[in-house]
């Protein structure tokens, strides 16, 4: 790379602008890739063809066509709605997702910002989108939306705790909260932490499904009960924001799970000096395996009831996660 380009990126604002542009590009790309995967995979599971015509081959342009359609729609705001809150809610939801990209290590040194409290930051910031959902539900002036928003809030309280507790095991093993630090610790140890943290990984995945409010935990949307929950009154590009945020969030939460439990951008047997280039590919591969599992669950399971979800969180996941922490800590001290 020529010197002046390197120097240019040393400037804080230029670097910030570049990173922002990168994330702004990545989110729609990832959203579309996952959205398309969901369409095609669900079609496969249900003996359908899925998107077929848009773009000529396999309907690859379906998501682009959908996006363009959403932008053409009227931006409808209900008369009774709390206008500013209603307008800003989708931005909140998407913002939480964007901010998560900051701490995902795509390769050695390939991270937007390697915070020393990366894990903590990621878990804290991921609950912002739930506030956005609550705002959307409240401001829509629709009883179904309100119930959806309140269900989302209840779900957040119930599932934030197992989500946090589940990652503690990995943090204890690595001795750091920095995301790239945890990956490096796994490289040093020579094994991904999932080997000793199966329980933590399972709890994390279940809790992140609830965090994403996807089936089997999609009570805030619950199409057959609450019509579309907090999404009922949204149209056009604001609806698209929620849509994108859901898919991008699937990506980021899977990426966090991969980083904490599955060795991040590293695969055993890959020489360390090639990770610079192979890292992002490995990470994407692992993420898409988890995303596939999420899509698979979505099209196989029905949804829980709200009280059953709370039972699952408080009576099962939290005690299991706590026991996992105790066992991990004990083993760490004595072994």
């Amino acid at each position, binding site marked *: 790379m020529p010197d002046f380009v390197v120097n240019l990126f040393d400037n804080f604002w230029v670097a910030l602008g570049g990173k922002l542009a990168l994330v702004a590009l990545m989110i729609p790309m990832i959203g579309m890739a996952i959205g398309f995967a969901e369409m095609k995979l669900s079609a496969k599971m*249900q003996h359908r063809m899925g998107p077929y015509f848009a773009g000529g081959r396999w309907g690859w342009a379906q998501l682009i066509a959908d996006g363009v359609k959403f932008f053409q729609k009227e931006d409808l705001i209900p008369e009774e709605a709390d206008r500013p809150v209603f307008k800003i809610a989708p931005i909140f939801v998407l913002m939480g997702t964007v901010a998560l990209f900051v701490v995902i290590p795509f390769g050695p040194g390939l991270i937007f910002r390697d915070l020393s409290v990366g894990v903590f930051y990621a878990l804290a910031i991921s609950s912002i989108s739930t506030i956005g959902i609550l705002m959307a539900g409240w401001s829509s002036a629709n009883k179904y939306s309100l119930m959806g928003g309140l269900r989302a809030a209840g779900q957040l309280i119930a599932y934030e705790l197992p989500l946090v507790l589940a990652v503690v095991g990995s943090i204890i093993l690595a001795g750091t909260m920095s995301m790239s630090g945890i990956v490096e610790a796994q490289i040093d140890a020579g094994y991904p932490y999932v080997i000793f943290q199966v329980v933590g990984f399972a709890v994390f995945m279940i809790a992140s499904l609830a965090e994403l409010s996807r089936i089997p935990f999609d009570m805030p949307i*619950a199409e057959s009960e609450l*019509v579309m929950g907090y999404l009922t009154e949204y149209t056009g590009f604001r609806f698209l924001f929620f849509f994108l945020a859901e898919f991008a969030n699937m990506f980021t939460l899977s990426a966090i799970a991969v980083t904490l439990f599955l060795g991040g951008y590293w695969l055993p047997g890959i020489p360390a000096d090639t990770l610079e280039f192979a890292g992002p590919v490995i990470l994407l591969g692992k993420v898409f395996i988890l995303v596939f599992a999420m899509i698979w669950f979505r099209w196989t399971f*029905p949804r829980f*009831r709200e009280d059953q979800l709370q039972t699952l969180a408080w009576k099962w996941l939290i005690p299991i996660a706590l026991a996992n922490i105790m066992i991990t800590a004990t083993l760490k001290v004595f072994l």
Partner: protein
Amino acid sequence: MVMDQDVARHLSDASVSVELETADMTLNIGPQHPSTHGVLRLVARVDGERAYDLKPVIGYMHRGYEKLSEVRTYPQITTLVNRIDWVSGYANEIPFVVAAEKLMELEVPERAQYIRLILTEMARISSHLVFMASYPLELGAATPLFFALRERERVLDLIESVTGGRFHPNFNRIGGVKPAYGSGSSTRKMVQDLPAGFFSETRKAMDEVLNAVDELESLVAGNEIILIRTKGIGVLPPEVAASYGVSGPNLRASGVGFDLRRVERYLPYEDFDFEIPVGENGDCWDRWWVRLREIRQSASIVQQAIDGIPAGPLQAKVPKVIKVPAGETYVRAENPKGEMGYYLVSDGASGPYRLKIRSASFSNISILPWILEGVLVPDIIAIMGSLDFVLGDVDR
């Protein structure tokens, strides 16, 4: 005065902080709602997620068939009645034509009766498959829908190949099934019987349906979440079910083995060997489970019927203009949704004097205020779905 208002406000604040009083919300479910099977409207008082004082509001689908049939001739009415419960259109025609035949004292040829029976059981299979498709969807699982609807399509294709219609066959005639000799402007006399290859196709389709039912059973019954969503939810004790006039699979799920196919003689069911599946607890799960087993029984009845179908004419001798002798009768039949009956009053004219339609879904949803009292909002959907009603059948 100002002081008083301030004091009052503070006092009200204080009482709020002592005990959080939350106002109840009136939730209007429907008539446009994804899970009300059409245009049923429910008005509920909800406290958080719990619903009380639930009132079903019906009538959005009222088409006035009872009144309409008073100004139609008997052959015209079959086009009306198969639109009552459109999910099993064929089965609706049977009790009506049987009622007319009873008053006319017609002897329907045995082959026609067997064809009626085969198509009725196929209608039952297709109706229950719609339930198998929609019920998991209401619980949030989208995939069983496609498994069930694919098989239903096979059955509908067969019904179409015989009758020419998928939903509204209009195949029954007073005295038999569609006339054996072509009428109208054509002078050529055409014998219309079952289409070529119907028996082998049906045998194959029934095997496919049985396979699909096994597949659905493993897909749905093997799912832990479905079980916890349906077991013990919406329990309907037999005595309550009977007092509300609930019939069909909903009644049998409560443990009452009452089936009009055994009680009445509207079609030759006594020639066949089949079981009446009965549930134990009368909850949502039993209602699902009874219907699943009924599909198996119906498929077996169809297979027995095509093995034993006798030869012969399709139509009894009837006058050109059908006039039913004065009198009245009530004929009821076991429809997929429950008991369907027609009270036919004739004054000897070419149309009925009065036709009272007793439809299964209307009585079945009368249980809603009782069964939905104090349940959670998600369970409203689960219970309503398990009762398997069709709004056309409710409002007529």
